[in-house]
């Protein structure tokens, strides 16, 4: 089959989308932020596990705890979305299945993250 398109014309649009570095950097930056936040979160879980409902509400209502909780949750859900995305892209090669799983990953992370952060804000702002 003879093609009348130039080699350059055929190659255009088939290369990298130039977004790879952005994903790579965002994974690293979120992991740098999460390293101290996760250590704090483990400490938080230790405190919360030893306390009851009243203690948990009181703990979440402290401004520093509420802020760090929201940051930990937001960055965690962002980071885990990035990670699971790479897992799906590495192992699933059928276009429809891959796309469906990528959308599912985004929606699960978005919904769970939003629910968690809204719940923290509700408690922190005195709704509970």
């Amino acid at each position, binding site marked *: 089959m003879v093609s009348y398109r130039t080699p350059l014309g055929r190659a255009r649009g088939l290369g990298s989308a130039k977004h790879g570095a952005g994903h790579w950097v965002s994974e690293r930056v979120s992991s*740098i932020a999460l390293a101290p936040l996760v250590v704090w979160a483990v400490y938080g879980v230790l405190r919360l596990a030893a306390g009851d409902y009243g203690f948990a509400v009181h703990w979440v209502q402290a401004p520093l705890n509420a802020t760090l909780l929201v940051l930990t*949750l937001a960055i965690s859900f962002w980071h885990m979305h990035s990670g699971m995305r790479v897992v799906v892209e590495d192992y699933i090669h059928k276009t429809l299945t891959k796309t469906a799983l990528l959308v599912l990953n985004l929606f*699960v992370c978005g919904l769970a993250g939003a629910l968690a952060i809204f719940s923290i804000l509700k408690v922190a702002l005195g709704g509970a």
Partner: protein
Amino acid sequence: MTEASTTPRERPVSPHLVTGGLGSPPLWRWHITMWTSILHRATGVALYVGALIAAAWAISLAGGPDAYAGFKALLGSIPGKVVMFGLTVCVFYHLANGVRHLVWDTGHGLDVKSANASAVLVFAFAAAASLAIWGIAGMTGAL
């Protein structure tokens, strides 16, 4: 095989996880840096579930005393504690190995000797930190 001089040598085979072909022995030796790589991904997937449990915690707290008591009873049960211990190991493993990856990203520690040594360090940290946290949990009445 019969005419060793004229038949071409066997082509080099790309290293494969399981076997070099039907009935042949494994080509790829399992080594520690391979485990750290696989486990980083596996613990990441486990922590995905862990983050969903954290979201459930926040939702139950916003749901009121009864919902929160139900959630705590679930996590306080034997299966709940097993899951939480597993997640503790995953958190510390993924944290330590994540830091190892960040160090690699600066271009340091990539030679075989350093990579093997840091792998041992990561496993040791994950085990020690998990046991320490559960020891503290036992002493502070968190269990």
